């Protein structure tokens, strides 16, 4: 990867995903391994447009994870206190 701006974006994305992964229901190791594989799979990509698209996909995963955690918490509490 040549563009330093994109590079830092990718690193930030990776860090954020790892941070989110700490709460992953199947465990941190499970998440970290898969996250790493996903990043390594695209390590040789050079086309800037393509990298941008992949970053956007990563951001989407970020949002999905946040939504997943919120829903999981909400459902647990609802089950515990309202049923």
């Amino acid at each position, binding site marked *: 990867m040549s563009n330093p701006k994109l590079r830092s974006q990718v690193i930030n994305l990776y860090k*954020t995903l790892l941070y989110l992964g700490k709460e992953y229901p199947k465990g941190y190791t499970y998440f970290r391994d898969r996250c790493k594989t996903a990043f390594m799979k695209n390590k040789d990509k050079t086309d800037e447009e393509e990298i941008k698209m992949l970053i956007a996909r990563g951001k989407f995963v970020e949002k999905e994870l946040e939504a997943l955690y*919120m829903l999981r918490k909400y459902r647990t509490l609802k089950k515990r206190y*309202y049923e």
Partner: protein
Amino acid sequence: MSGFRILVGCKRVIDYAVKVRVKPDKTGVVTEGVKHSMNPFDEIAVEEAVRMKEKKLASEIIAVSCGPQQCQETLRTALAMGVDRAIHVITEPKEYESMQPIHVSKILSKIATEEKADLVIVGKQAIDDDCNQTGQMTASLLDWPQATFASKIEKSNGDLSVMREIDGGLETIKVKVPAVLTSDLRLNEPRYATLPNIMKAKKKPLVTKKPSDYGVDITPRQEIVSVEDPPVRQAGQKVESVEELVTKLKEAGLV
């Protein structure tokens, strides 16, 4: 509206996803090496305060947590969600074990007076002791109106109109500020404290105080006699035929 201050309480509790284990000596539950996080109902309270600030209904939000050193992490989460500053009332872990809602509400009411808060929002209950008392006690100590189990809060010319969850329905009441509110589950969906925001939150002010700074005596009023697991559900049995089922039911005296 300028100068409208909101005080929110954040308790550090064992994470909701953790399987709680009782200590073998029955004095409490195992807390060492167990994941902790902010009480989910307090998260909802923080979120509501932040939303009020975003709607320019409030000017400053102050988060308070009472407990051991690690409570600062909980306060950082609150700061990352959008709280302006935090007050940590530090207690020894030993003292904290015997701390009751009465002590916390005394501290909260003292802080509310000292910081000239216009609104106190706390979670309706904590998921560890399930007391559901702190908000009510704080309101009574301050002699402020209270709106508990809020599922919707609206501001209308100085007053707050609060929809409350009650048995079998909803109730809308009007309260004058200053007031104490406690948040119910359906009030809002708390935002996630993102990594960059947690980093930024480290720069936000956090002051540490002692219960004695507020003149609150935290000697225990209660003694924990015993903490036990709930009874385990007994395993069922399979029956081959209807006759067998009927005999078994008759044996048990159920039919």
